[in-house]
């Protein structure tokens, strides 16, 4: 079956612009996760959703970052006023339920100039 998909695969933006990253989870998966992979910080957890609810937003690096999930499916990660340190690969994962195995998408490579 189809795996987790993410779009765009690559995004180049200028410092100060807003960006939206999209994740389509595996059909039927109720849990969705966002991670960031960067050279300096490795793989960092950002936020997870159970259904449309995000119980814990403390992993988001700053208040410029926000995420939402609608209809228990697609999720969008938004970064406002991007900074160069936001450059990274943003990975999305989904699982049938929280506590189950997480399946990852191919990621979105964000470059902030």
């Amino acid at each position, binding site marked *: 079956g189809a795996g987790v998909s993410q779009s765009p695969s690559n995004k180049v933006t200028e410092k100060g612009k807003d960006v939206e990253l999209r994740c389509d989870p595996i059909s039927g998966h109720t849990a969705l996760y966002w991670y960031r992979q960067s050279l300096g910080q490795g793989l960092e957890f950002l936020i997870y959703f159970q259904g449309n609810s995000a119980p814990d937003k403390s992993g988001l690096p700053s208040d410029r970052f926000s995420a939402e999930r609608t209809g228990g499916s697609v999720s969008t990660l938004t970064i406002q006023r991007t900074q160069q340190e936001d450059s990274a690969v943003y990975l999305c994962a989904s699982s049938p339920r929280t*506590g189950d195995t997480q399946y990852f998408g191919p990621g979105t490579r964000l470059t902030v100039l």
Partner: protein
Amino acid sequence: AQSVTQPDIHITVSEGASLELRCNYSYGATPYLFWYVQSPGQGLQLLLKYFSGDTLVQGIKGFEAEFKRSQSSFNLRKPSVHWSDAAEYFCAVGDQAGNMLTFGGGTRLMVKP
């Protein structure tokens, strides 16, 4: 707080040789443990996981890992490495609620012909 250490940043082995990648974790309770592999430009693919039960876990592509509670380790092994195994390998620990994964820094495997 949970943490994962992968002591080896780079490992080079000859094709056909055996492989062991080290992973040490810190977690207060019984951990959920995972090994993922990432090929260049790709997302993370699950190799194997440990939730409970038999401490020797079999995964895909001929990989196995052994959970040793006394050593807080979950080392990945393969008896005979193939050139296609060249990639970066990540060990991860999940919290009891399964809401997030904490990853190690990764081990980059190179395979000599």
